[in-house]
């Protein structure tokens, strides 16, 4: 069924370099359908951030074609395309332009030339959605990193983009905010209105995505599901990804011939089921993948 959705992003034979000596991306081909969640992974400096910056013409490739929303990206349509692609960056401080949360969200909306009433409606709707309504009059100095990042997401979503790019958005966050933000992205995915790119080092984020694009030395090394990705030990190593503890344990157990099913079990599964049936929002988002909290 999902196969029928439209292709939203198409990269063909992309080549990109900041300087003549060093090519960052070469022969990159990629097509992404509406509603997909793509995790872009790879070692630091492999060109992940560069890749996503091509989508809204923050950077322009030396060679190749970038098509977004069915149109080739040019000088002329770049402003329009930017208004349909939202980005959330790593450091929440440096994307906070307004001096209050409200002003900051409004800043983007002003650029869309919206009427005051529509701005008010959107600010109310998206801060409510992200549970930050109470923070509206706050100065960024009064907010925690996690709160600031939520505000950045609200500012981005209020512009009602079709594509949202998270460029290492969780990497400066503490554990709690990291999980909250992941919950937010999962919620967005479920809602189905967004096509999501997340540039990330975070294993949980990769596992939650539909598709992994692994970059190595400026080319796409792998384009696969997270399931396939995490089975390929060599690939993981090349991408600078340490197998998470749970997977390492699984591996060790398998090597010892212990299958999960060999023991009378069902502790984690019951939880998964409960979560799927009853849970909603953050709780479920946090718990399902992990097999539930500890008793």
């Amino acid at each position, binding site marked *: 069924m999902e196969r029928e959705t439209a292709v939203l992003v198409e990269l063909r034979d992309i080549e990109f370099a900041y300087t003549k000596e060093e090519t960052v991306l070469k022969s990159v081909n990629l097509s992404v359908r509406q509603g997909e969640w793509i995790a872009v992974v790879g*070692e*630091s400096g492999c060109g992940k951030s560069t890749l996503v910056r091509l989508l809204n013409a923050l950077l322009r490739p030396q060679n190749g074609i970038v098509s977004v929303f069915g149109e080739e990206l040019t000088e002329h349509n770049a402003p329009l395309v930017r208004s349909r692609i939202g980005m959330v960056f*790593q450091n929440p401080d440096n994307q906070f332009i307004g001096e209050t949360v409200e002003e900051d969200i409004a800043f983007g909306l002003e650029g869309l030339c919206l009427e005051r009433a529509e701005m008010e409606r959107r600010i109310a709707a998206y801060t409510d959605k992200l549970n930050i309504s109470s923070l509206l009059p706050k100065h960024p100095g009064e907010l*925690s990193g*996690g709160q600031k990042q939520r505000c950045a997401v609200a500012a981005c979503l209020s512009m009602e983009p079709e594509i949202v790019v998270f460029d*290492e958005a969780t*990497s*400066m966050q*503490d*554990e*709690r*905010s990291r999980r909250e933000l992941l919950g937010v992205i999962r919620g967005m995915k479920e809602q189905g209105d967004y096509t999501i790119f997340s540039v990330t*080092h975070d*294993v949980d984020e990769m596992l939650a995505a539909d598709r992994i694009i692994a970059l190595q030395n400026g080319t796409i090394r792998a384009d696969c599901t*997270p*399931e396939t990705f*995490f*089975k390929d030990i060599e690939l993981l*190593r090349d991408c*600078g*990804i*340490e197998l*998470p*503890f*749970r*997977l*390492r*344990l*699984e*591996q*060790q*157990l*398998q*090597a*010892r011939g*212990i*299958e*999960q*099913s*060999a*023991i009378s*079990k*069902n*502790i*984690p*599964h*019951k939880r*998964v*089921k409960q*979560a*799927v*049936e009853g849970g909603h929002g953050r709780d*479920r988002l946090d718990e399902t*993948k*992990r*097999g*539930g*909290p*500890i*008793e």
Partner: protein
Amino acid sequence: MIGWTRRNAGDQSNSEAVIQLTNVDYTYQAGSPFAATALHDINIRIRKGTLVGIAGGTGSGKSTLLQLLNGLLLPTGGAVKVLDHTLLPNMQKPRLNALRRRIGLSFQFPEQHLFEDTVEKDLMFGPMNFGSSRKEAQSKAVEALKSMGLDEALLKRHPLTLSGGQMRKVAIASVLAAGPEIVMLDEPTATLDSAARRELIALLARLCREEGRTILMVTHRIEELMEVADEWIVMHEGRAVFQGDADELADRSEELDHWGVAVPEQLRCWAEWTARLPQLAALPLPRTAEDMARRIEEAVHGFEKCESTNIASKEGSQQESAQELNDQADSSMDAPYRHEKEVSACVTS
């Protein structure tokens, strides 16, 4: 060189304390509305040659704590004893370089504090401030670079031309160059990829085990340091709410979430397995995946023997056998990570 091995519980209490905080309070300038970042009644003791993890959420006081230990901040109450220095409230500002040579502090994103035009000069900055001659400083720079697992070829490079991971390690080396007995690091792994994190932690563990340095590392990911940390301190709202080893931490895992830190995977997995195999509960928490797998293997073999006798009674309801199926289907490596869609499909089938 002395071989440093993990201490067992027996000799812990005897070893010498290099840091001792007694009823320490710290309040930022009176009248500041950011009193939440202050510290209240901190009592901790850190033994020589141990690797201590300090965990806590944003604003819990972790960074303030580190700054008290090398006199960047003076306590407003209680006493801070570090090596043979004692820092007290309202004391006349002591000369602290003698202390700071022996206790190094690497701030968050330390690569942002490099300033010289070569790596070598930056590495020599510390030693020369602490009175080394140029020659001594040079050899200390080389040594520090090596102990961070970096190549000497980097010495002549400009710090800004290095990769992110290399810059981080150079910056940490610039603290090590002064030869501190205690090394404090504020979230040294932040924003690194997971392989780089693991490598850095292995290097820090080596500093501790092989060179006998005391390491204090702030992290908000207990998981990454679980394998090597001898001891944990958890900070929450300016209080040290926990000090103890991994097993004691495991006993209080239900409080971790309230303290704003995530329960590490090691504890989650172990708890799941002890719930299935209760005989595991008596064992100490295995820190590595290998250890844990071995413990489980031992337990399973013992378990299977007695289980085989009453296996028939275990064949239960429809629901259970559906889950059995589910187990088999997912016994591959990615089992715990399958998508909720797939899970619900299995459950309803």
